[in-house]
């Protein structure tokens, strides 16, 4: 056993307080058998070359470097060791600059402390094991879940870099929510127009050739880890052959059945139909539960009229496919809280933001006319902000997007209906941003403040209907819009559970870090985009879609293996008692249960080496490589010597 102990002077900064000669004398007899190597500035380019040559020549079994903080130069010396043919994990650094020389006034005390810490380090390195980085080949394909703006943007960004992408969408069409909104805040830009170039590139463009779009599809299972995920996707039958259908919609006109149009929140559609004009891909789909033919009844109306033989395919079956991908981007979106509060449930002409958007859209149920259920224009519109937000009976947070929508509705209602009385009932108003400020200051609606959402009371009917605000006026409310909170919805909730993503307190997919890792999840190789991360607008959807794709591009590079840091936790099968304590504690879902052997298993690809499981294991069965119990114990003994 021979240990090279490099003592850096740091150009006199360290030796100002520490006498290396005394330290050498104190430690010469250490069992690590030290070979002291003095250097004036060990990190200097010339010294690196010299030290590399010395280490290559000496071939010490261990290396201790007493210099600056390991946070500064640990990697420098690891590289140096690797170049000298020594396993870089035999290194331990002693921080004698920041943590001894600079903070200890008395040279004798500083020298004693340096000797003590070096003693600890020499104890420690005796316990070091050679470690090796593991190189794992990766799949560079990416699966994107959700084809809203965030998912489409992520898929296109990847596809433009020639990555193969599978874009998985549960609806029959792409575009998410904004494709159904005709007027987008703040400049009333048309949603489908804005998204058209994106959807067009995706469906028909050059980059789109790299995207395999699966509509009517949901992920049902996932296994694997970063670089090698296997997703099982279930695709419901469309009963329309996408290769043959020309999208003429003659079938929809011929269909004798009407079903509720859930995408509009009102009105109906044929059993074979598109949710709204312009929905893409330009293909109808058949609702099997509404279709007479698929219910076993005698009907061939659509088949008779369809101009392309084989375009309608009633033999279509549910399919299950397997997707292999190196990374997964979750862009499953969010939704408005669905159920209406009791005071408003069952009343006529009460809208949520979503049904209001559809009502205002020219391709919506009323052709863009702001009309009540009876077809007449309302004389008054009451828009209730914070309808369930910042509320102990609803959600405690502000969605941050509804106030903008409310101001937009007020403006559009006044433009569409002459003489309409528009009142915004606000609890709080949140309108940050330059463009928002512009809209806010031009808002003509009257504003009534209320304190408690549960205190709002609706009375009367028709033109005379009012919302009574406790301690305030009676607000004319022939039509009502409730700005309900944005919530993760079942889609994102179920997906987060399936993918074992962490959820924040409100059920949104939790980012790795709120500020610095907002598009990464805690699971390595799974990225987050759009409002599955929390309420957001379209700008955020596009930005985070791009960001998530960028992360996937930078971490999965064709021809470049994934290098796994060897300082991970490892379970000793012989010692593991199968208590599963570690599995519950791991912040990264890196530990799985091996049911056949009844032991825990750490996936090194996912482990980030924090050591929480190591400290928690009641059987002491987990070793934290690089920070093992033996190493820390030896270091402790040295520090207390």
């Amino acid at each position, binding site marked *: 056993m021979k240990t090279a102990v490099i003592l850096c002077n740091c150009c006199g900064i360290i030796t100002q307080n520490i006498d290396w000669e005394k330290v050498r004398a104190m430690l010469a007899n250490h069992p690590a058998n030290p070979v002291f190597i003095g250097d004036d500035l060990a990190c200097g380019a010339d*010294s690196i070359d*010299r030290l590399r040559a010395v280490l290559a020549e000496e071939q010490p079994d261990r290396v201790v470097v007493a210099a600056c903080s390991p946070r500064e130069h640990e990697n420098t010396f690891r590289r140096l060791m690797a170049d000298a043919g020594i396993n870089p994990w035999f290194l331990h650094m002693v921080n004698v600059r920041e943590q001894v020389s600079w903070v200890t006034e008395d040279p004798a005390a500083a020298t004693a402390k340096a000797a*003590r810490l070096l003693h*600890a380090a020499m104890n420690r390195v005796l316990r070091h094991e050679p470690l090796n980085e593991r190189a794992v080949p990766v799949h560079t394909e990416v699966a994107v879940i959700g084809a809203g703006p965030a998912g489409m943007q992520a898929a296109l960004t990847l596809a433009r870099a020639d990555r193969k992408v599978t874009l998985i969408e549960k609806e029959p069409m792409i575009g998410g929510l904004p494709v159904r909104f005709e007027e987008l805040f703040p400049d009333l830009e048309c949603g489908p127009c804005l998204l058209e170039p994106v959807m067009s590139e995706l469906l028909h463009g050059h980059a789109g050739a790299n995207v395999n779009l699966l509509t009517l599809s949901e992920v049902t299972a996932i296994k694997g880890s970063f670089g090698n995920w296997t997703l099982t996707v279930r695709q419901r039958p469309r009963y329309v052959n996408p290769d043959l259908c020309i999208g003429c919609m003659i079938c929809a006109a011929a269909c004798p059945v009407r079903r509720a149009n859930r995408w509009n929140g009102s009105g109906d559609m044929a059993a074979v139909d598109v949710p709204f004009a312009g929905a893409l891909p330009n293909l109808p789909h058949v609702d099997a539960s509404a279709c007479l033919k698929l219910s076993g009844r005698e009907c061939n109306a659509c088949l008779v009229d369809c101009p392309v033989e084989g375009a309608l395919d009633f033999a279509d079956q549910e399919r299950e496919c397997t997707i292999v991908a190196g990374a997964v981007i979750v862009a499953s979106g969010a939704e408005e809280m669905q159920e209406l509060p009791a005071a408003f449930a069952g009343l006529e002409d009460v809208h949520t933001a979503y049904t209001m958007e559809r009502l205002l859209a020219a391709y919506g149920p009323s052709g863009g006319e702001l009309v009540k259920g009876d077809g007449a224009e309302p004389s008054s519109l009451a828009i209730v902000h914070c309808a369930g937000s910042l509320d102990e009976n609803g959600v405690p947070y502000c969605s941050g997007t509804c106030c903008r929508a409310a101001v937009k509705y007020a403006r559009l209602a006044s433009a569409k209906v002459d003489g309409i009385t528009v009142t915004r009932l606000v609890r709080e108003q949140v309108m940050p941003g330059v463009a928002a400020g512009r809209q806010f200051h031009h808002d003509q609606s009257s504003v009534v403040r209320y304190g408690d959402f549960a205190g709002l009371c609706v009375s009367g009917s028709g033109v005379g209907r009012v919302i009574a605000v406790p301690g305030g006026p009676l607000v004319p409310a022939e039509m009502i819009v409730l700005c309900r909170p944005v919530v993760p919805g079942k889609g994102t909730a179920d997906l987060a559970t399936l993918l074992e993503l962490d959820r924040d307190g409100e059920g949104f997919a939790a980012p790795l870090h709120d500020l610095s890792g907002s598009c990464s999840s805690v699971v390595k190789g799974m990225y987050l985009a759009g409002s599955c991360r929390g309420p957001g607008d379209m700008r955020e959807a596009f930005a985070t879609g791009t960001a998530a794709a960028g992360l996937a591009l930078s971490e999965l590079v064709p021809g470049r293996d994934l290098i796994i840091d060897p300082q991970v936790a490892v379970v000793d099968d012989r010692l593991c008692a199968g208590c599963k304590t570690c599995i519950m504690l791991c*912040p990264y879902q890196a530990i799985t249960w091996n049911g056949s052997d009844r032991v825990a298993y750490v996936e090194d690809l996912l482990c980030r080496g924090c*050591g*929480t499981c190591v400290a928690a294991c009641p059987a002491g069965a987990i070793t934290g490589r690089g920070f093992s119990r033996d190493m*820390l114990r030896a270091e402790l003994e040295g520090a*207390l010597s």
Partner: protein
Amino acid sequence: MSCRTVTTDVTTPRVQPSRSTGAPRVVAFLCNWCSYAGADKAGSNHLPVPAELSVIRVMCSGRVEPVLILEAFQKGADGVMVLACHPGDCHYKEGNLRAFCRAELLARLMVQLGVDPRRFYFGYVSAAEAERFSRVTLEFVQQVRALAPPLAEDRKG
């Protein structure tokens, strides 16, 4: 740079590291990302840190098992500190909260084991809190210094 020499100094008399009698021995487990960085910053700012303090770096305060702390006392430590990221700042999400819970339980256990819980300190130091690192370490060492040596108590028992 050729003036520097390689010394293989095997002729020096063999002397074990000595510690000045009466100086308390204090071990501090610091997490790499916050408290260790805070200690480095204390160094950059040339703030005083007790010479009696021996720092052991771990990646996360959640790595420090309570048994290791008890072993430190068994091996003659006069005081042990565990310094973590502030709640909500943990590089590993929640390792600091695990460490906090373990520290709470350990402090109670120490009483039963006859170790004065004032010899143990769990606290939070961020990467920016150089002054705080300097202060809590100085105060803790001062506090430990004021207590009777634990081994002396043992011998009496």
